[in-house]
């Protein structure tokens, strides 16, 4: 048995069936564009605001892109029973779920770089610290995907997954320091900010793009990685408890 054959084919099938479909490609481009335009116009401070907005737009693009896709690739297949076929395959559940999520991670990373490509033509990005930005984007995509997986395995209908996703996504826009500094939040809300993985991803993005991080980068990366591991672990436990009953 060569598990990588199964891994690669699950990933390739999902890429073909879901991520590379024209509606999803256009979603992956239009959505970050819309976020960029919205915050750019709202800021009213011209092209100079782009480095300030870029971390938030990148992170939000990843967050919405990944969590939306998991509702389809996992919840929809579970509902249609084709997910059973994967559970019957002689590959470890961990590998199976990594195969199911790798497409969403790649989709999220691609989403993140749509606003970056736009920004390249409109602003000076010569000071961006790419060696920290790129792994941060990947880790944000992984943590958002695993958050999407956690949501997808907690519900049974696609619409429930979308609704439950919004329960996490919209507060994260305001609470994780993407557009509004955490220090300006009411004191009682701040603990909630630090309980969200995107807070640490946003901090690395701010540090990488405009040198304005608040926490040590190593701590940000460590906490992001810990959130990834925890969300993946809890999702696997939920699959074993809820789907292999």
């Amino acid at each position, binding site marked *: 048995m060569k598990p990588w054959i*199964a891994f690669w084919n699950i990933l390739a099938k999902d890429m073909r069936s879901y991520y590379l479909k024209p509606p999803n490609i256009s979603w992956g481009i239009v959505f970050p564009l819309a976020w960029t335009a919205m915050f750019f116009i709202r800021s009213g401070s011209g092209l100079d605001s782009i480095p300030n907005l870029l971390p938030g737009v990148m992170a939000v693009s990843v967050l919405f892109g990944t969590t939306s896709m998991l509702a389809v690739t996992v919840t929809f297949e579970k509902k249609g029973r084709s997910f059973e076929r994967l559970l*019957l395959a*002689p590959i470890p559940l961990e590998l199976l779920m990594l195969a199911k999520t790798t497409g969403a991670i790649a989709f999220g990373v691609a989403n993140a770089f749509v606003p970056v490509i736009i920004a390249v033509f409109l602003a000076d990005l010569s000071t961006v610290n790419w060696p920290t930005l790129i792994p941060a984007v990947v880790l944000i995509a992984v943590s958002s995907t695993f958050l999407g997986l956690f949501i997808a395995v907690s519900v049974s209908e696609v619409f429930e997954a979308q609704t439950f996703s919004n329960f996490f996504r919209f507060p994260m826009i305001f609470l994780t320091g993407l557009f509004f500094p955490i220090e300006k939040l009411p004191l009682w809300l701040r603990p909630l900010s630090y309980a969200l993985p995107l807070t640490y991803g946003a901090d690395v993005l701010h540090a990488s793009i405009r040198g304005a991080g608040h926490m040590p980068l190593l701590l940000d990366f460590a906490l992001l990685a810990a959130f990834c591991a925890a969300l993946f672990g809890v999702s696997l436990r939920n699959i074993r408890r809820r789907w*292999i*009953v």
Partner: protein
Amino acid sequence: MTSDPQTAIEVRGLAKRFGDVQALAGIDFDVRKGELFGFLGPNGAGKSTTINVLTGLARPDAGTIRIVGIDCSKNPKAAQHLMGVVPDEGNLYPELNGFENLAFCGALYGMAKPDREARAKHLLDRFGLTNAARRKFAGYSRGMKRKLTIAAGIIHEPPILFLDEPTTGIDVASARQIRQLIADLNASGTTIFLTTHYIEEAERLCRRIAFIVQGRIVRIDTVENLMRRTEGRHVVHFAVSDNARSLCDRIAAHSPNLQCQAVAGGGIRVESSEPVQVGPLVRLLEDCGAEVAEARKVRPSLEDVFVEITGIEAGAMKQEKERAKMGGGA
């Protein structure tokens, strides 16, 4: 505990509860290598739960399962590699075509690309689906879906195949073709665990049969031994115009030694340990004003044994399942 090397599936004390419902109440059975083993029972008896537990889609509350000697609780993935599973509903990918579905299923079992593609082509040909190979699964007819789902179950040439209601809800020609495929697969050495509510199907295909009712196995035996229960029984079926139930009462009053029963579709079934004299009964029925369209001797079937052992009307069970299937879609 050591396993008999000739045993493909060994189940001991298997129990499973869903809330207040005891789906499986400590069942035991063995399936020998190369055997075609039938698992018969009404809806909700525990057939699909048994398959789900055996194949790793559900966790048992108690009991042990060994697949070719492999303890499923310790090494479920090794056991899954030896199994093919055909669920009661087509669960292939609607957006993929027939060939892609089979090739993808082969990949799930680690088959290299040339091997899985060659095997997919072979199976499409064997199942008469070559012309539909490039058509999306969503556009297949119910019978074609069943055939492709079975093909997907054997793409990796498993030594053991679990078939859950393989012919339910499909047309007669497709069902006949699938039965032949099942027989051929078994003849080529595949051990088959077949759940069905078509008793005649089990009678025709299986060597041994287990009857399961309310999560308990009430009888396991060879078809030959089960049919011995019908030896010395004589059954005659009368097709009558109407009022079968009251006609039964008249026959019972006239000949108390006969067992008489109204059957679905306007008929009367008369059973006796002595040869049934058809002429006097026809005259009696006609005297009662009934129009007798047909009177024929019937060979007692496994269905009679099933009804006797389980107390469940087999015809009602079949109709109930068909209705559920047609309502639910394939």
